[in-house]
């Protein structure tokens, strides 16, 4: 398991110390300082490394069928990557399902490249030397929507169903603490430890949250995707383990993504 590493940011911290330190006297609250720290880091965002590896993986011939993902249809036609993430999740007729990016990638890896689900998901979330192809591919595809406005459709009945289910799940209380997503993300100005909790029921926060994932998590030294984000919030909520690419995860993502409509996508970003 990945352990939190105290030294994780030494170099970044040392290099930005001057600019951050100079402003430290001017007061302001912790959250503002964390925001400044994030901005200072954004210039050298290691997410770049994942995007580069993901682009390479996308173009490589892989799997038993030895084909690349360049014929994979992410919703805008086979091989079209530009702007695709900003319109996901969406309904795919060939699978008769609403899919988010990661379940769609999984679909292409199994149907086109001929991998088994287990092979394609050998490392859903990377940990040091155990690198995740899924995270790299997601970083690459998401990065190709930078600057594109979120535009998630509700035209198909199954897209509307997914949204409605996601909304229901968001407010559904359960588990040993009787928590819903809304318990932690339904009010402004709440935090856990030093982490600001976005109020995901409010457009501005919902947009900012969704358009800044995937993200390089500095404290883990890994790039994380929305499937990971949900997985970790399920854990915090003490809910059962969330299955990768499940209808539950896609429904929640449809709800979150659609609520971000109109905002400019700006990830992979960098987070604490």
């Amino acid at each position, binding site marked *: 398991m990945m352990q939190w*590493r105290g*030294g*994780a*940011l030494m*170099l970044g911290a040392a290099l930005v110390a001057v600019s951050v330190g100079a402003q430290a006297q001017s007061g302001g609250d912790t959250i503002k300082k964390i925001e400044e720290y994030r901005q200072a880091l954004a210039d*050298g965002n290691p997410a770049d*490394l994942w995007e*580069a590896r993901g682009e390479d993986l996308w173009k490589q011939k892989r799997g038993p069928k030895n084909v690349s993902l360049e014929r994979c249809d992410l919703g805008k036609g086979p091989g079209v990557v530009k702007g695709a993430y900003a319109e996901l999740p969406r309904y795919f007729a060939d699978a008769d399902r609403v899919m988010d990016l990661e379940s769609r990638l999984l679909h292409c890896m199994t149907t086109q490249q001929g991998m088994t689900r287990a092979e394609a998901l050998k490392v859903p979330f990377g940990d040091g030397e155990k690198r995740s192809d899924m995270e790299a591919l997601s970083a690459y595809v998401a990065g190709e929507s930078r600057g594109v406005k979120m535009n998630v459709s509700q035209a198909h009945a199954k897209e509307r169903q997914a949204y409605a289910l996601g909304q229901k799940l968001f407010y559904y209380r359960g588990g040993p603490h009787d928590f819903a997503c809304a318990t932690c993300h339904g009010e402004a100005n709440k935090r856990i430890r030093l982490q600001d909790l976005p109020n995901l029921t409010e457009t501005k926060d919902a947009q900012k949250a969704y358009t800044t994932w995937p993200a390089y998590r500095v404290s883990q*030294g890994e790039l994380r995707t929305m499937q990971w984000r949900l997985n970790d919030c399920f854990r915090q909520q003490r809910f059962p383990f969330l299955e990768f690419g499940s209808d539950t995860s896609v429904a929640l993502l449809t709800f979150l993504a659609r609520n971000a409509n109109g905002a400019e996508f700006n990830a992979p970003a960098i987070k604490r």
Partner: protein
Amino acid sequence: MADPMRIRAKMEGDKTVVRVLMSHEMETGQRKDSAGKTIPAMFIQEVTATCNGKTVLSAQWGTSISKNPYLQFAFSGAKAGDKVVVSWVDSKGDKRTDEAAIAA
């Protein structure tokens, strides 16, 4: 083999500003794995950058440098189109060299 570095080099006034991202675990030797065993140290030890055959940066690194390090530095005497070559060698002897042309 290690992943390629991401190198961006750009003229800013009469200086060349270089930004480098390296893909490396930078194990400190202080962490333990889930079985409680110490993970051995393994980190980038030497970094050099050259431009037109001249060394413009030479550094000795240790375990206080972060995972996936980001390095930014500036030097003078180069022009747009020249190549910056960056190399690292880690404590296991693994190495990596990449280059980028300086953008205007």
